[in-house]
């Protein structure tokens, strides 16, 4: 997997990488929050607070992306990571592809 960082604009490339990682964590937290809420152990006030905080996090991430004009950079990093995750999953589901890969190398 290659993550393309624009050499001329290393700052934006790096920021894009960081924001992409934070975005993944944020989406993961959102899913887990939903699961906790559905679990039913949280009080109404806690649900409200949790929702509010996650909304604020999502909004500020969008703002950071817009302000620094790194939407494309973030998208390309995330596509790269998703592709890598897909490949990994594919290998776990079909272990025989490992053999094919080895044969190709030889």
């Amino acid at each position, binding site marked *: 997997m290659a993550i393309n960082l624009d050499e001329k604009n290393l700052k934006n490339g790096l920021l894009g990488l960081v924001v992409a990682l934070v975005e993944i964590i944020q989406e*993961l937290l959102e899913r887990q929050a939903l699961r906790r809420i559905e679990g039913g*152990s949280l009080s109404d*006030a*806690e649900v409200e607070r949790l929702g509010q905080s996650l909304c604020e996090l999502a909004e500020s991430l969008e703002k950071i992306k817009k302000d620094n004009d790194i939407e494309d950079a973030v998208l390309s990093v*995330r596509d790269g990571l998703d592709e890598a*995750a897909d490949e*990994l999953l594919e290998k776990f589901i079909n272990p025989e592809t490992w053999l094919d890969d080895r044969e190709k190398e030889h």
Partner: protein
Amino acid sequence: MNPQRDSSLVEILDRLLNKGAIINADLIITVAGIPLIGLNLRAALASMETMLEYGIMEDWDKSSRELYASQETHLPLIPGEQVLYKAFGYIWQDEGIVKSWVPGIWNVTNERLILWVKTPGKAIFETPLPSLRIFRVPASHETRQELELVYPEGRARISLSERDEFEAALARATTETTAISV
């Protein structure tokens, strides 16, 4: 907002957390056949909901939620007072050794203007609305907008990112106050 896209990485991580993972590892690092460093790892990673299902970290979950609830403070209001507008902002403090912008939540009520700090829960600044006057001043920071407050006890420099809305809310609150007092 953009439509939610399906990210396979997030999906995988989410499933991993929902299921939970246990790592048990023993490791010895040797040099020339002599064991030098030992590592004995027992780790469990799972979403809190899964942890609770297995009865792990129940007490911790409970106590950390209670701790937050006990720390949460609310703005003390006079009977009949209502918060009309809230915005994040700063006040310039130059008393003492450190001169700095102190952050908090600006609350415009129908009686007062208050800068409230949630933890530890205190009002850094408060003044009754009727005698308050505000002036626009040039900002010292590129992304901030500053205002100067003049009130009976003195002056204060404050800063907000939504200055126009703040001014409008103050104007509305002040007219409401005078309308009630008349």
